[in-house]
């Protein structure tokens, strides 16, 4: 499919309008006169136009069965295929001009890379919406094929509105937003003018000067606030969040309209944030983070792909609709940690007083350098509040963490999304015998240090938390695998699989089990749940699963052979329809349909010997194959090379 034709002149103007104007004035000034200037401008426009025509002719996108293909490029050509399964977000934006000429920009985000992976500039708004819907439909069709729900049909799922901003809330968003960056910028610009201005005011008293300073600071805050309010008003105007099938859709914007879709299965973390003002009024903000981009990081889109403001109850209700996490009851860090915060604040005040004293000593005028010491009174409540607003909670499927008083954020991390768990203890934390545990996810906002972190918990508690997060992740993975693809676990524990491979794998397993036992023994207080999960008799130690034959796939014939020569392909792709299984284990002998299963396994082997590589499913898992080559170090039998 092609771009919208009206995008040609728009793109050309967008790119070179600035250059044309500058060129026009420069040439006009050189004495060549108006015709030359107009000619030069026109020439640049023509070149840009020609380029854009070529771009338009070259740009092609197509929705194939499982990928979105984009072919583009005038000078260097590029073909890109984006699997639907991997698409995280589809965003559409239309500025005022774009709305006037009837085009929209479409951006597709995947988890890889920092930039937008698929950018289609520009198509008609109808086409943009169609793309958005079509990508979702094909994606859910793809996952439905492997056992997901099939509520998406050709017409698309019904859209159910979750949230629409009311004028009152919009006004609140404006009133409560404050663009701090602007203060920095203005202060920076202002500080440059101080020496200049002070040159003109030699005889003014200190009092008048400080009055002016206070007034200036006040004005600065007011202006920042007004700008922040205006920006968020135009950003959130007409905000609306809806749920359609397994996808969230949002729309917002006054001048520039944004709309986008967030697949709920790609949600990494949810963040409910508020500040004292919002808490007093009973409001909160919800942001949704995916791996494609994250709030505050994704530039123009991601930052607003959430609920700007709503009643806290409503926010939690919506958050639970996306990730059902139940009613949290946070556990707080040990009380003694308040002393740590108090010390920290006292130190900070001491530094402040020191700086003021130095300024007093350096400047000719007297200033009350001891004034910051009055803030000592605020230290105990501040330390208490900081402690009070920290916490974590382990829910059934989610970890919730809470941090911050001035801007408090509650993060909801599904165990399933945890990438790694980090336990860190600084020198000062070691003094207090506490640690911080961070559950890292693939969302990108963590770059700014806003991870889901349980800060300042007892070392023992932190260690337990770390282990139990690891175990809960494994349990969640098992559930996921068991549920989504309707597999059931092989009966028979670690012993069975260890006996019959007799290869490196068994040794490693034994070692791993040993290590685990050792760790458990040395810890002494390992989580009992953890041990349970480890010795769960229903789950093979190999993590091997047996396909459910009820899907109707015919396993009696060998799978299609694909000759890849000596090139190794992924024999066990993670997104294969059917997981691998061991052959000849007792578990499979117990299986109701073992005759069929064994036949498949033998066929699979035959195919492997032929040098063909059949799709996973009828194949043995790595390392547990039937000892055909026990010395094969990686356990993957590389048939073609033998």
């Amino acid at each position, binding site marked *: 499919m092609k771009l919208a034709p009206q995008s040609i002149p728009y793109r050309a103007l967008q790119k070179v309008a600035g250059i044309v104007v500058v060129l026009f004035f420069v040439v006009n000034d050189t004495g060549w006169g108006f015709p030359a200037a107009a000619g030069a401008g026109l020439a640049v426009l023509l070149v840009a136009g020609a380029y854009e025509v070529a771009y338009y002719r070259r740009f092609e996108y197509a929705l194939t069965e499982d990928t979105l293909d984009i072919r583009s490029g005038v000078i260097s050509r590029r073909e890109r295929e984006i699997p639907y*399964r991997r698409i*995280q977000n589809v965003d559409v934006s239309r500025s005022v001009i774009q709305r006037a000429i009837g085009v929209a920009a479409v951006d597709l985000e995947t*988890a890889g890379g920092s930039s937008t992976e698929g950018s289609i500039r520009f198509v008609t708004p109808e086409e943009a919406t169609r793309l958005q819907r079509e990508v979702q439909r094909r994606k859910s069709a793809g996952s439905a094929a492997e056992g997901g729900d099939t509520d998406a049909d050709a017409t698309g799922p019904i859209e159910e509105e979750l949230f629409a901003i009311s004028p009152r809330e919009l006004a609140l968003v404006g009133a409560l937003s404050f663009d701090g960056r602007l203060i920095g910028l203005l202060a920076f610009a202002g500080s440059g003018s101080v020496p200049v201005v002070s040159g003109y005011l030699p005889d003014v008293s200190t009092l008048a000067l400080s009055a002016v300073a206070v007034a200036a600071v006040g004005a600065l805050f007011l202006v920042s606030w007004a700008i922040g309010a205006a920006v968020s008003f135009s950003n959130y105007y007409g905000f609306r969040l809806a749920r359609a099938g397994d996808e969230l859709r949002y729309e917002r914007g006054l001048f520039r309209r944004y709309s986008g879709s967030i697949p709920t299965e*790609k949600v*990494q973390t949810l963040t409910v944030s508020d500040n004292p003002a919002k808490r007093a009024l009973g409001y909160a903000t919800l942001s949704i983070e995916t*791996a494609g981009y994250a709030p505050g990081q994704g530039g123009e889109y991601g930052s607003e792909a959430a609920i700007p403001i709503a009643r806290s109850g409503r926010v939690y209700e919506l958050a639970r609709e996306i990730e059902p996490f139940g009613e949290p009851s946070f556990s707080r860090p040990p009380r003694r940690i308040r002393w740590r915060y108090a010390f920290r604040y006292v130190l900070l005040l001491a530094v402040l007083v020191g700086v003021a004293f130095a300024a007093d000593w350096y400047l000719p005028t007297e200033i009350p350098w001891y004034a910051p010491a009055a803030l000592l009174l605020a230290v105990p409540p501040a330390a208490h509040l900081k402690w009070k607003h920290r916490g974590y909670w382990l829910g059934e499927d989610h970890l919730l963490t809470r941090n911050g008083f001035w801007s408090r954020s509650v993060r909801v991390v599904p165990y399933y999304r*945890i*990438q*790694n*768990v*980090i*336990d*860190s*203890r*600084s*020198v000062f934390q*070691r003094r207090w015998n506490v640690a911080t545990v*961070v559950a*890292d*996810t*693939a*969302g*990108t*906002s*963590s*770059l700014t240090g806003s*991870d889901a972190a349980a800060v300042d918990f007892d070392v023992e508690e932190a260690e337990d938390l*770390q282990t139990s*997060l*690891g175990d809960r*992740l*494994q349990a969640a*993975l098992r559930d*996921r*695998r068991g549920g*989504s693809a309707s597999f059931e676990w092989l009966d028979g524990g670690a012993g069975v699989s260890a006996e019959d491979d007799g290869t490196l794998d068994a040794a*490693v397993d034994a*070692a*791993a*089990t*040993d*290590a*685990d036992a*050792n*760790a458990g023994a040395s810890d002494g207080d390992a989580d009992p749940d953890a041990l349970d999960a*480890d010795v769960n008799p229903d789950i093979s130690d*190999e*993590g091997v699963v047996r396909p459910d034959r009820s899907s109707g796939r015919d396993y009696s014939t060998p799978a299609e052979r694909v000759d890849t020569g000596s090139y190794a392909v992924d024999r*066990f792709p*993670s*997104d294969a329809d059917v*997981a691998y299984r061991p052959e000849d284990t007792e578990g499979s002998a117990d299986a109701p349909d073992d005759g069929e299963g064994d036949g498949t396994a033998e066929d699979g082997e035959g195919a492997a010997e032929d040098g063909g590589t059949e799709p996973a499913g009828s194949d043995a*898992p*790595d*390392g547990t194959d039937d000892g055909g080559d026990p010395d094969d*170090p*990686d*356990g993957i039998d590389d048939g073609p090379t033998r």
Partner: protein
Amino acid sequence: MTTQRLHPRVRIVWVLRAVLAAAILTAPAAGAHHLGYVPEWVPVVAGATLLVLGVVHALLRYRRWSYEIREDALYLDRGVITQVRTTVPLVRIQHVDSRRGPVERVVGLASCVVYTAGSRGADVRIPGLTPDGASDLREELKRLAIRADGEDAV
């Protein structure tokens, strides 16, 4: 697998790095002395302090560093000033590199880098391995990661 320590020779790499850092940081002081702004003892003391701190840090770092491949996770324990213990579930491993920097090649060592899709601990580096050890570890982690068979990581 039991807890693994790094190869003792990694201390050479880290000490060399500390020496280099001390040299670079002392350069301004030495320059100032050369131009006559500060007396001779300033660069000497600065250099010696940095060197001692760097070397002690390198040695302590070696003492702290350990890693372990557990049943379903890679576990790392490291850090002198801030102690960090990282758990990388094997299912979350995206890919594994073994690499050898120039200094590492000189002392005959290599390191192994494990990548996950996480944002903060996106890559963890295990230094101080023998070249064979690094490729063995890489293969081992690859095998374990395939066996763990994570679904779509993100």
